């Protein structure tokens, strides 16, 4: 075989050691799921509960995706909770005028973008630190929310809006056994695509002369990812089918994973966060990159506002309170560095799920918010401690 030359010789243990850091978040998530499975007698792994975890955390996960970009660029956004409330309230008002769901969604994203432009302008071009600008934004948009809602909830004219959060995608009558047919079909397609693209990429790398891992590790990776997909989708299928927010989340994640890894703007975000002065001298328009990042954050706040309004089935003036803290914590649990330049979308999502699974598990056990705070805080500290410690040990930090 001519490809032999490209295949790295590495033992399983060596490989595991090399990737332990990268995998540690997933391992942590898995362990936490297991711990709660024991503590709740498996209730947290039921189809209904797995679906709920996605629905209950979707709006935080969407925010975490934007927040990690902001953190990578070396900034922070404290205003996201208030912006969620503001855009959520506006979306409810827009929907109640009867313009329909899709126009409401698009307009809300636009409102989010406009807020991003506003805050991004002060941060990127005027040079006011993001911490201060968004602290102002946090108060400003909370105030505006109170003004436009008269400090009372806005209820929605019908149940159409709710579907975004609690609805599911299924074709009526299409079932396989007692399961939802569409979920099963999507699951099969997803696994097939995963196998196909992984193998194709491997072949491409070999033909380009890059070194690759032995086939058995590729198979191991594909197998574990497939197992994960099958697990989640079987849960969906056994309950009501794929939740609509699941699709929304998937699209958002896919877009931003691609953006960070494969586009010029994505690499620019990492470069500016890694060393703004050097990035500038490399010919990167850092101000513009910072500006764009905050616009992206704004758009995702708009989306999160819509999802949250749908989830609550009304727009609340105090909505989104402390969302910024959950979103920021998700990023750090997911391996982002406070000094900027380091972080991933998948990390932020995993971090958000870690928090979500803890919240959910403790609620199932009827443990109150008081202890939930204590446990979440401990997890945050521990996760970041592990990250820093392992980074230092492997000479990265």
């Amino acid at each position: 075989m001519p490809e032999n030359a490209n295949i790295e010789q590495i033992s399983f243990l060596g490989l595991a050691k090399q990737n332990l850091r990268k995998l540690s978040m997933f391992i942590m998530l898995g362990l936490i799921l297991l711990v709660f499975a024991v503590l709740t007698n498996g209730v947290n792994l039921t189809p209904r509960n797995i679906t709920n975890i996605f629905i209950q955390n979707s709006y935080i996960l969407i925010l975490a995706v934007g927040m990690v970009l902001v953190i990578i660029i070396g900034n922070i956004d404290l205003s996201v909770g208030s912006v969620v409330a503001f855009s959520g309230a506006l979306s409810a008002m827009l929907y109640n005028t009867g313009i329909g769901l899709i126009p409401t969604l698009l307009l809300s994203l636009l409102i989010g973008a406009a807020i991003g432009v506003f805050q991004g302008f002060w941060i990127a071009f005027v040079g006011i630190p993001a911490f201060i600008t968004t602290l102002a934004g946090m108060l400003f948009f909370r105030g505006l929310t109170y003004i436009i809602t008269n400090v009372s909830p806005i209820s929605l004219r019908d149940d159409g809006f709710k579907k975004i959060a609690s609805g599911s995608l299924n074709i009526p009558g299409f079932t396989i056994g007692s399961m939802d047919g569409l979920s099963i079909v999507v699951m099969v397609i997803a696994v097939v695509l995963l196998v196909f693209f992984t193998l194709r990429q491997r072949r491409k790398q070999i033909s380009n002369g890059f070194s690759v891992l032995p086939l058995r590790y590729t198979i191991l990776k594909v197998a574990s990812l497939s197992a994960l997909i099958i697990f989640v989708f079987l849960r969906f299928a056994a309950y009501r089918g794929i939740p609509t927010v699941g699709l929304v989340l998937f699209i958002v994640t896919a877009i931003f994973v691609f953006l960070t890894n494969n586009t010029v703007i994505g690499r620019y975000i990492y470069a500016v966060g890694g060393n703004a002065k050097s990035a500038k001298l490399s010919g990167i328009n850092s101000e513009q990159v910072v500006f764009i990042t905050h616009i992206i954050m704004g758009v995702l706040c708009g989306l999160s506002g819509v999802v949250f309004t749908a989830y609550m089935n009304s727009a609340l003036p105090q909505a989104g309170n402390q969302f910024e803290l959950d979103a920021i914590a998700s990023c750090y649990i997911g391996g982002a560095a406070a000094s900027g330049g380091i972080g991933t979308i998948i990390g932020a999502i995993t971090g958000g799920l870690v928090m979500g699974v803890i919240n959910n598990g403790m609620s199932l056990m009827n443990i109150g918010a008081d202890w939930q705070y204590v446990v979440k805080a401990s997890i945050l500290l521990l996760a970041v401690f592990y990250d820093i410690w392992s980074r230092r040990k492997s000479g990265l930090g």
Partner: protein
Amino acid sequence: MSNDEYILEVKNLTKDFPGVRALDSVDFKVRRGEIHCLVGENGAGKSTLMNVVSGVLPRSEYEGVVVFKGKETNYRSTRDSEQDGLSIIHQELTLSPYLSIYENIFLGHMKTRFGIIDWDTCLKDSYPLLKRVGLREPPQTIVSKMSVGKQQLVEIARAISRNAELLIFDEPTSSLNDEESENLLNLIREFKKEGITCIMISHKLDEVLAVADSITILRDGLSVASYDLTKAPVSQQQIIKGMVGRELKNLFPKKEPDIGDVVFEVKGWTVHHPDYHDMKIVDDASFFVRKGEIISFCGPMGAGRTELMMSIFGNSYGYGASGEIHLHNKRVTFKNPKDAIEQGVGYVSEDRKSLGLILIQDVKTNITNSSLPKLSKRGILNKNLMRNKAEEYKESLQIKTPSLEQLVRNLSGGNQQKVVLSRSLLADPDIFIVDEPTRGIDVGAKYEIYSILNDMVKQGKSVIVVSSELAEAISMSDRIYVMNEGKIKGVLDRSEATQERIMHMALVD
């Protein structure tokens, strides 16, 4: 113990980093009271060896034995080694920029009375130290306001304030000009007279030969040779051969000038200090460069050469820049560095750590960062192309790294410099401005870099070099501009340039 011949003995030292063996059973001995120079190519392991000796790398991180003053060391950090009388002055200065001279000197070991810092005693004690290192600034001066050369003297004062018996200098002269370098070498000779042992790492072989009592050569983590110069002299050729493993006939490649018309011209360029707006840093500077020409800018530190280049390069320095830039006979302006790069001007900063590289990113990313628009289609990156380009420059500049995914912070100083150069070369500029391109680079790699510059001008491009090494400027360039105090003092042709004339022009006229 004090009658021991060797103050420091390193035996069978091995140090591995992930993917690299930086030191491979190295033996290294330093006699009491001598000046011992350590030489070797970039990435040979010199800094690593000194980091082991001085406790920057703690005992648990290497294999082998280090014996200092007859005792095996067991340092956990530089704090321990300093207490033992061993101080290191790093390749990159480590002063706290906003503190004053005397605060920096006593940082970490302040004089205290009842647990309260006694600043007056610190201040008083700093005078004799400053006198010893020959620094005339008042001790209250904030260090970031001083030149690199003077900051280094502060660092040295800090080291001797702890009664060092062994001082280690990692490339102390790499960011000094010739005069400052000479002063520093004299200071080291002075220390020797006082009985302090010094180890110096340097890529400048003439200064090594001028001060060394002994020389040790490292190559690829191995100690390949040790010379005792008090017994028999060594030639520069011998050292180079030991370092690179082959003969190197010339230090400068031959250049056949093929010079065309003026392509880049700057007229009446004036820049003010970024904070003190009425202070002129560059004053009415005018110069031009022709197609296929290499020009150099010489002058003492603080002459305004870097500031001139950076402000031209898209207003990257200073306040209220005025003047004209003409590119290919058209008047142009560069709003920002991006603009300048797009119009075909490239700039490589002298300060690779804070202005050149992104230390937490890998080699491949750093090399490609300036050229992403070219390496992508509709904003989507062509990752194979990125890899291939990075690989190409790693090969052609011989960047020593285990892989393209290595973080640049883990590369040796010289190899970091090659990464910065690669980044600008990949952006393919017509007018290439390089600020101290060979700072901290070994002789072999210097030759490579000169060859690359020569190749560029052969392709009809133009190169502007800011250099503090006069020998380099004279051998490489077609014309030399001499600057001092923000003004261009004159220009010399290749044929008429000598070190004396350049110095004379800078200081007297």
